[in-house]
């Protein structure tokens, strides 16, 4: 059972994950088109005009972040950034995972020490708990929440919980490790087909579509 789940089923899960994401990216490019180049002529602004508008350097430096999400909701911005970073990095840099990869394919991805990843796993679980509580306690988040949101949070939480329990061999190791692999695979196959797809759409939307908060000038628009 374990051999199947950690072997062929894992492969299937990864294939579904990669193909699924690929399909979504492909669809995005199909539903958008290149933005027409701006074909107008106008006197370009000059540096001195720009400088007259701005406050002195000492002021703008201190105030720059205030209008951004980091300025408006710093706690949440930092928490969610850390959560997402750790969510992705922890499994990738996990010694146990990388040992399995080495055994299977002979390559040795870099790993963090087990002590560190243990702490990071607890951190991720802590963040999951934070988001769960936020969804219940905060009126504005509650107003948007459905069972689907809670289920997906559980989906993300389970691989980390079961991984932690299995690593520490707290109880019923064989069952827990099986549950861990299954939970991880379930999460992988769900990513392209649920709101978790924001994993790639964050980048597609924010880099390719024009907008006040886009990271680039936006080269594509919806058809």
């Amino acid at each position, binding site marked *: 059972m374990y051999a199947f789940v950690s072997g062929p089923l894992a492969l299937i899960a990864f294939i579904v994950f990669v193909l699924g994401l690929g399909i979504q990216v492909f669809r995005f490019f199909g539903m958008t088109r290149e933005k027409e180049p701006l074909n107008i002529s106008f006197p370009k602004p000059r*540096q001195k005009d720009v400088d007259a508008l701005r406050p002195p350097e000492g002021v703008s430096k201190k105030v720059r972040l205030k209008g951004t999400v980091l300025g408006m909701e710093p706690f949440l911005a930092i928490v969610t950034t850390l959560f997402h970073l750790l969510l992705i990095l922890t499994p990738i840099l996990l010694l146990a995972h990388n040992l399995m990869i080495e055994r299977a394919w002979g390559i040795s991805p870099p790993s963090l020490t087990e002590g560190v990843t243990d702490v990071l796993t607890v951190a991720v679980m802590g963040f999951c708990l934070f988001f769960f509580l936020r969804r219940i306690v905060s009126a504005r988040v509650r107003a948007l929440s459905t069972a689907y949101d809670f289920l997906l949070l559980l989906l993300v939480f389970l691989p980390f919980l079961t991984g932690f329990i299995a690593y520490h061999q707290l109880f019923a190791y064989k069952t827990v490790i099986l549950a861990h692999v299954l939970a991880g695979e379930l999460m992988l196959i769900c990513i392209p087909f649920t709101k978790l797809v924001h994993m790639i759409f964050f980048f597609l939307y924010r880099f390719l579509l024009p907008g006040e908060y886009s990271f680039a000038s936006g080269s594509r628009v919806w058809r």
Partner: protein
Amino acid sequence: MIKVKRKPFQEIVEAIQRYPTVLSVGCGGCASVCLGGGQKEVRLLNEELREYFLQQGQEKQFTEYTVERACNMDYVRELDELVPKKTVVLVMACAAGTQLIAERFPDTPVFPSVNTVAIGVDRDIGLYEERCRACGDCVVGYSGGICPITRCAKGLFNGPCGGTNQGMCEVDDAIPCAWQEIYERLKRQDRLQDVMKIRPPMEWRNQIQRTVVQAGYEERYMQEE
């Protein structure tokens, strides 16, 4: 919509210099849409001013509020509780909204913190083109959908001047010649006879068409030195 652009910082500083409390009012209408005077700009301005005066050794009280539209008294009324004594109001709405607010609070000094620049169209994020001077007697139908007042530097009504150079205006070679474009547009629609009738000139001031590149977005369109 109306396009506004923030005034030079020093000008705003001078306006509020002698008042201990400042209320910054944003507008959720035109000013917001052109990224010139919405909630975010109001917040940022307050933060910049607060920091500036702190660095000068002065502590001023700043509050903010954004109304749906400053050009309607129903919304301006929402400010009633927020305008205490000895305050100055900085408005980030067009001059029309600024004046309505000044009318509502005749005992309070009201200053615009933006310049009302144009009635224009959106070209890209942070880039807006003036298209109308609100002359009140629109002739764009006869000129193929191109306003000769706004887009011709001399506001000519009956054809180009002799200064058209390769399709560009002699006043500024980054400005297309409006009459060249009018001619081409009407020719395309087989309506050249529309400009063969002499029209009496509009009593209007001459200015080249203005393009507003919003504060903070200059980098995208900066002139190469």
